């Protein structure tokens, strides 16, 4: 199993406050990798480092066998797309305009709209089912529609590797499934390698080929969900007493919470 992207003993810090120390993690090519962990464990920070948005204090991030800092910034953007947690749709922008912005890394001063740009945007809107919304303003859309539009923007970027930071937050359960099914489709049908940060353990178990569990800025377990998700691990990392059953739909591990082991004084 070859790795497309890897962090090698990276130490990550914001303004001197260390968030993660000596973390190594590998993203297998052609798979869906899901990162889980309790709040403030460094998931988002790790994702930002993998997408070269945060420079490690030590260690390095390797993309396709080469240090990510050795690529030009547009070159990285053609290989790796990231959907951050927080973004702002400019006031009054239409869906098609927003999705078209995903083509920036493929454009140049005098190559502003190639046939490939047009095709990529149309395909991205089709896959995320927002073609009918193309002329609508993004502000007018529902949360679920808006999230699909943002996904379409990153899709139009046509990167073999996509990193998604909690793509299901703020969505109701049906729209969460909708987005996750779309992600799986991107992986299975388009062959894209996906890395997602997710909050819901059962969704993570269901959609991950490769699960990475983090706690306190360190990776505590890594592997197939069925191997990784154990009662002992849940107690240790999430301070959660739980049982593990088999998901009757997907036959993946299903976490049934029993009690919090956290002492609330």
């Amino acid at each position, binding site marked *: 199993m070859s790795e497309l992207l890897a962090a090698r003993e990276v130490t990550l810090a*914001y*303004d001197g406050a260390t968030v993660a120390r000596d973390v190594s993690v590998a993203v297998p090519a052609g798979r869906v990798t899901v990162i889980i962990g309790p709040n403030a464990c460094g998931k988002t920070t790790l994702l*930002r480092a993998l*997408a*070269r*948005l945060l420079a490690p204090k030590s260690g390095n991030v390797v993309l396709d066998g080469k240090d990510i800092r050795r690529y*030009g*910034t*547009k*070159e*990285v*953007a*053609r290989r*790796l*797309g*990231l959907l*951050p947690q*927080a*973004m*702002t*749709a*400019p*006031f*009054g*922008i*239409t869906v*098609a*305009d927003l*999705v*078209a*912005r*995903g083509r*920036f*890394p493929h454009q140049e*001063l*005098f*190559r*502003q*709209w*190639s*046939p490939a*740009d*047009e095709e990529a*945007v*149309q395909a991205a*809107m089709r896959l995320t089912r927002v073609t009918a919304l*193309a*002329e609508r303003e993004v502000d007018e859309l529902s949360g679920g529609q808006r999230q699909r539009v943002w996904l379409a923007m990153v899709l139009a*970027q046509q990167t073999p590797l996509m990193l998604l930071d909690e793509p299901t937050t703020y969505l109701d359960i049906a729209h969460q499934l909708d987005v996750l099914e779309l992600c799986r489709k991107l992986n299975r049908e388009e062959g894209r390698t996906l890395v997602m940060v997710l909050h819901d353990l059962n969704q993570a178990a269901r959609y991950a080929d490769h699960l990475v569990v983090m706690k306190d800025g360190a990776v505590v377990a890594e592997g197939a969900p069925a191997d990784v998700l154990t009662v002992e691990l849940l107690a240790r990392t999430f301070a959660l007493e739980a049982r593990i059953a088999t998901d009757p739909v997907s036959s993946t591990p299903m976490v049934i919470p029993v009690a919090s082991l956290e002492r609330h004084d």
Partner: protein
Amino acid sequence: MSAPAAHRNASPTVAKHAARGSAVWRWRGLSLAWRPRRAAVVLALMATTALVAAVAMTVGTFHVALADVLAILAGRGEGGVAERIVMNIRLPRVLAGVFAGAALGASGAVFQSVSRNALGSPDVIGFTTGAATGAISQIVLFGGGPNQVAVAAVIGGVLTAAVVYLLALRGGMVGGYRLLLTGIGVGAILGALNGLLLVRGALDDAVNANLWLAGSLNARKWTHVYPVMLGTLALVPLLALGARRLSLMEMGDDLARQLGVAVERTRLLSVFGAVLLAALATAATGPIAFVALAAPQLVVRLGGRSDLPVIGAAAMGACLLVVADLVTQLAPLGANLPIGRMTGVIGGVYLIWLLTRGRNL
């Protein structure tokens, strides 16, 4: 037998753009995307500016007919008083207005984008006040002539921007709101300093400084025009080239960076260019309110929202200033009202309107 591919590439073709309202021209491997509506707005604004400027050159104590103005501008003047008045007094005045307006408009567009706020214009965040501090210091402390005052205004504006930028910097990043609030704070301090300089100075100097502070196109000479003209012609196209990147940054730094934008470098260079434009405009005319604030907003309402309209805002700024100048000259106010005061009044009303609507602040 035909070679359709080669044939197709021989001349520019019109292609489809996913976003309605955008048009594409393709020629060989090259392509240009543009917005017909926005281009039409820019052309209309430029035409209006030219027309109003020509009319403005007929106005004054010595009336020159429009036909004569056009003949003189075309180099077919008959010499005499009319030609001297148009070439040495009225043309420099109008051009100072056109280019100062364009500079302010483009500068405002960039600042509003960087601060992600409709209030983020150089006159609100203290850069114009800083330019004024430079100019007043020169007038009151050193008694410099117009050229030294202009240079001091540019230095004052750029220094203020540097101070605001450094104060707003945290962890290598400048956030939008932090830039805005820091700028307002620094501007307030400099405003007080300007008042102090006026009180401290000799009476004549203080009067001169006050006149300069009112912002005026009166008595503009060619030496006032050249710096702002050259600066505008050089910097506005450069800023327009960076507009796409700035537009992407409005969606959030992380998103722009993941799309391949060098965010901090783009921000620093754009802010530097915009500061220079605002300072050059202020050096040429004194502080003129409202134009930098309103031009980008107005052009967006006319031309539609998509990418940051740097050139559109410049065209709108030029148009606004030239129109305001003509109105102040024609208004039956008796006294020759400085244009800076005029735009200040309109700007105040506009600002209140913007605040009460409140949706996109």
